[in-house]
């Protein structure tokens, strides 16, 4: 059986720190080595058959080919320098995409490596390679073995190490039936034996799909990316036209001023081909054209770094548009468990007696609620925790769904705690006072547990849902972003209202059934809103499928994972908020760089127009406000700036622009200032600076 031990797992065991999954690639920081590694890929992407997918850069490449031919026919230093930088412009653009892909692939490879060599043992004992598995195959996995593919546990229970995909080292329990039956390929069974029915189709596991999303060549363009590409193509057409139609006008003007000297930019045949191409390349939106694909890939990467696998780029974009978040109360808004927060004695009962009884009744109760009662009695009333086994003659009564209470019998003392109605019935007595306390606690969103000894009710334990720290601030942030938060809970409306008020959500859905959830989503969508939710159970599947962004928890069932369009490997429902932010950041980065790219053109005109025409009409030298050295240096500086700015912006494209949740107006003001105004000013400085160097080259 050891034959199926995964070699990689062994290798990783010796050097745990190198496991890429444990150490995700840091956002923003780019290892300069990565540029070197991606260079061959960047050169490969010069192939026009792949480049034509990017119309802007395709035009640049065609221009570069054209100037290369011109440079060979009529060589000059100026011509070759321009040609060289035009080729560099295309290569830089390819490099941006290659680096983004490289990072994505590194992460994907880490996931893939874990399952590559895995061997599957079918139920009948035959061994086949994991890659051969078909949907519906049943495999047996024992302790120490790697689970060969995504599937559901149909027999047995096991602890599974999912660190290969989640980075979380604590093992998790996977068992047949219920909501913890799904297992992921590449994870390792630590104990026991399980039988798994494979649910993935060959080559369509989560990991496979994710790899496809970060590899540029196979990547589907998202709807917004298509729309932006249309705008960029339109701008390219306009500038192509502006440049082509300039030629007859230039010939006419030069003929009129026949005495004007020929320059490297213009002669009797009009503007030279080299300069026309330079003007075109500087004007068309190369900056955003070069980085657009990298931005999309990097957006997916950022999700992966947060251990979220998106099934499509479309889903990530939709996340930015979400206007309603459905959040499950338990685990998302509140800590998973209720905590005892207060002991309320009846009139005439010594608080110490109540605390003592409550603790005794909870000693054998290993649920978090029970533990919290013991801890409360210890901390607030100084009653030391006793070991259940050390109390003589004690018989512990466990909680059952029928009795709805638990407790202990010590000699004559029969102590019980539990649901109010059950305990009151058990004692056979009731009082208005108890009803009043129970009612008050329920109103506050708590759960009352009545404590009684024999036939006498001592008091009530106030179990409280504890809202996670910082949630209120989070929801305020959401509200500023224009996102409505709705809490989903199985609690009664009174309890739900109290917790909703404490957590600061906008609305709640109490006593929610899966059907209610689905109805709520449909209602919101009819109003034109986009809805995001998380879910894990099979009964969540319809709602997950209906939601615009459905994040399934990795611990959830296969049905839930199939229905959603993202899977959170950490199974952390709070992450929905981060996913929304990543979606927004992706769109903002696109918008910001588009604005920057267009704003850049203004300065380029001030460099190139006087350079082309000042020889013909000396008055146009007034426009040379940067006082660039010569026509040649001005044009070359603009082209060099245009290329270099791509490299400078690669880190920004990969990291995404800074995003802090705020209102749309505030975001627009800030981004317009930074990328709009910045985009106008930066090239004036950049081109002038480059010109200061270029003028040192003799003959330019």
């Amino acid at each position, binding site marked *: 059986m050891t034959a199926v031990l995964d070699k990689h797992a062994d290798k990783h065991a010796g050097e745990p720190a190198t496991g890429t999954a444990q150490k995700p690639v840091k956002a923003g920081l780019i290892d300069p080595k990565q540029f070197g590694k991606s260079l061959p890929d960047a050169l490969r992407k010069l192939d026009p058959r792949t480049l034509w997918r990017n119309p802007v850069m395709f035009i640049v490449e065609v221009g570069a080919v054209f100037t290369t031919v011109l440079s060979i026919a009529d060589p000059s230093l100026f011509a070759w320098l321009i040609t060289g930088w035009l080729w560099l412009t295309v290569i830089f653009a390819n490099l941006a995409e290659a680096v983004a892909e490289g990072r994505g692939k590194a992460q994907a490879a880490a996931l893939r490596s874990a399952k590559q060599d895995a061997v599957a043992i079918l139920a009948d004992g035959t061994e086949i390679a994991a890659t051969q598995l078909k949907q519906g195959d049943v495999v047996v996995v024992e302790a120490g073995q790697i689970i060969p593919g995504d599937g559901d546990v149909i027999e047995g229970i096991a602890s599974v190490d999912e660190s290969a995909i989640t980075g979380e080292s604590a093992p998790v329990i996977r068992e047949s039936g219920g909501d913890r039956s799904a297992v992921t390929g590449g994870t390792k069974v630590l104990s026991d034996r399980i039988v798994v029915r494979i649910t993935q189709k060959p080559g369509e596991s989560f990991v496979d799909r994710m790899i496809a999303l970060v590899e540029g060549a196979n990547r589907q363009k998202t709807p*917004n990316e298509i729309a932006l590409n249309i705008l960029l193509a339109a701008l390219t057409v306009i500038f192509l036209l502006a440049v082509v139609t300039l030629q*007859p006008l230039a010939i006419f003007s030069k003929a009129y001023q026949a005495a004007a000297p020929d320059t490297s930019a213009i002669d009797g045949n009009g503007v030279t081909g080299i300069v026309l191409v330079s003007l075109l390349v500087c004007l068309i939106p190369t900056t955003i054209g070069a980085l657009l694909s990298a931005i999309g890939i990097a957006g997916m990467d950022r999700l992966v770094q947060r251990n979220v696998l998106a099934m499509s780029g479309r889903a990530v974009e939709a996340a930015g548009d979400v206007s309603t978040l459905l959040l499950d109360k338990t685990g998302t808004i509140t800590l998973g468990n209720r905590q005892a927060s207060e002991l309320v004695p009846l009139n005439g009962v010594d608080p110490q007696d109540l605390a003592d009884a409550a603790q005794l009744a909870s000693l054998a109760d290993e649920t978090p609620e029970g533990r919290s009662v013991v801890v409360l009695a210890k901390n607030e009333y100084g009653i030391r925790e006793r070991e259940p086994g050390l109390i003589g003659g004690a018989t512990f009564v466990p909680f059952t769904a029928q009795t709805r209470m638990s407790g202990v019998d010590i000699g004559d003392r029969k102590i019980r705690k539990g649901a109010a109605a059950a305990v009151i019935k058990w004692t056979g007595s009731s009082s208005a006072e108890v009803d009043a306390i129970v009612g008050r606690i329920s109103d506050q969103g708590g759960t009352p547990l009545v404590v009684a000894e024999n036939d006498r009710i001592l008091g009530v334990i106030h179990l409280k849902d504890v809202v996670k720290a910082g949630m209120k601030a989070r929801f305020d942030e959401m509200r500023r972003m224009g996102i409505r938060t709705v809490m989903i809970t199985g609690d009664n409306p009174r309890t739900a209202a109290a917790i909703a008020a404490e957590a600061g959500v906008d609305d709640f859905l109490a006593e929610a059934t899966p059907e209610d959830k689905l109805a709520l989503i449909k209602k919101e969508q009819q109003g034109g809103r986009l809805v995001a939710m998380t879910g894990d159970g099979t009964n969540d599947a319809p709602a997950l499928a209906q939601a615009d962004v459905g994040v399934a928890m990795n611990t959830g069932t296969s049905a839930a994972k199939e229905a959603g369009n993202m899977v959170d490997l950490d199974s952390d429902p709070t992450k929905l908020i981060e996913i929304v932010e990543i979606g927004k950041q992706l769109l903002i980065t696109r918008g910001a760089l588009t604005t920057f790219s*267009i704003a850049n053109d203004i300065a380029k005109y001030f460099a190139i127009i006087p350079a082309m025409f000042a020889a013909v009409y000396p*008055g146009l030298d007034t426009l040379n406000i940067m006082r660039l050295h010569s026509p040649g240096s001005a044009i070359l500086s603009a082209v060099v700036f245009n290329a270099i700015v791509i490299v400078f912006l690669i880190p920004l494209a990969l990291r995404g622009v800074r995003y802090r949740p705020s209102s749309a107006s505030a*975001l627009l003001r800030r981004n317009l200032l930074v990328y709009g105004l910045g985009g106008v000013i930066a090239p004036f400085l950049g081109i002038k600076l480059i010109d200061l160097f270029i003028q040192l080259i003799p003959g330019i």
Partner: protein
Amino acid sequence: MAGWIFVLSLVAAIVAVYRPFGDYMYRVVTGTRHNAVERTVYKAVGVDPQAGQTWGVYARSVLAFSAVSLLFLYLFLRVQDKLWLSLGLPAVTDHIAWNTAVSFVTNTNWQAYSGESTMGHFVQMAGLTVQNFVSASVGIAVAVALMRGFAAKKKTLLGNFWVDLTRITLRILLPICVLATLIFMVAGVVQNLSGGTDVTTLTGAAQHVTGGPVASQEAIKELGTNGGGFYNANSAHPFENPTTWTNWLQIFLILLIPFSLPRVFGRMVGQNRQGYAIAAVMAILAIGSIALTVAFENHGGGTVPQAVGSAMEGKETRYGVTGSAVFAAATTLTSTGAVNSFHDSYTALGGMMPMVNMMLGEVAPGGTGSGLYGMLILAVITVFVAGLMVGRTPEYLGKKIGAREMKLASLYFLVTPILVLAGTAVAFATGNNTTALNLGPHGLSEVLYAFTSAANNNGSAFAGITVNTGWWDTALGLAMLLGRFLPLILVLALAGSLAKQQPVPESEGTLPTHQPLFVGMVAGVTVVLVALTFLPALALGPLAEGLS
């Protein structure tokens, strides 16, 4: 001082009528009742006024109506010598008839002829003036259809073109024109069917002074942003525009409908502030442009203006520099194209401004209807970029700007620059620029101006260029035709695409499209896009001339 009062009183008047007149137009285009005259029209045409049209049907109706108008007007011009009140003038030659028919049907009113020596009274009244009315109505109708697209929730119908056309003509244009005609007649604008009078001038020469139904044509010429003058001298002719205050009234009429349509838009989408925002963008661009034109003209530039003290060449002393410059700006900011001075004689930079105004795409405030839809297209493009910067799929008034909307808006934006730049380049490449009076940068401006004016359906002339040759008439006719109907179809397609959408409700995360920041951004995007498109051509024309 007089110049300031002239400009400020105009601004005040436009501001004063924005709400009441906008509200009136809103009631006209949204009303459900049809009066007796309208019902008769619908019956005669065979239209069910209750039936809505999809964008495709609406567009086909517009095109069919315009095609019939075009054919009818062409034939009308070709047989004018056989018609009543032809004043003995011959039939209009084929290429001028084509050019003129296209020109009036497209609301351009480019005139490759001189009115008094080419057109008889009947053709002027029943041919040209009728087109002045209906071409203006077509523009408004299409703008209203686009507004309905923004306002609709999951609908496919955009209203009924025939109803819109009839109502806009009968309830908006006609009453105002009747009133304006009377006022013009009081001011001394001629209105008769006289064949003209022969007079002996002070210098003893004999001159034939033509009369005609001038006042009635004058009113719709300005109100419908048409611009086709009865006389060749257009609004510089004392029979068309006798005094300073008729000059004021003409400019007011030019601006009235284009500046009030944003109010209709605001009412239609249920948020008046959206209308104010669009009007504000138009106003910023218009005021900026007027200020620059006036400044360039008043401060001369060029040897002669400096020697004389002001740039009075080509301007009427009745209006002075400011009255002329404001008229020039108003007529080119709207798609009117009437002139009361000769733009060719402006200072280089002053003459560039009317050209830039047209290059903006006739949006500030633009022609009747076409100005508003042009501006909304620019707003859509701005929303797309701005919307991304706030982290959402861009949406305008709750309607998502996706791939299809962007495709239509981008194509719209491409049409006129292609026509202008390609037309100009072809004129130079084929040597047809030689009919221009000048060489060098000024000659280049004359050609560029002609294509800019035609493709943007303005119709004003820089003059200084002979355009009644076969090539020019055909080329400019095509520029006018494509420059009118391609964008119009794209706008209706966009309206259809928007109407189908369920609007996204507004929230804190929605890009606010009524605040100063957005208004400034639309104005900025408009100027930057235009500058980037046309700067190289302008550099070799007016800029080369003005900066030397």
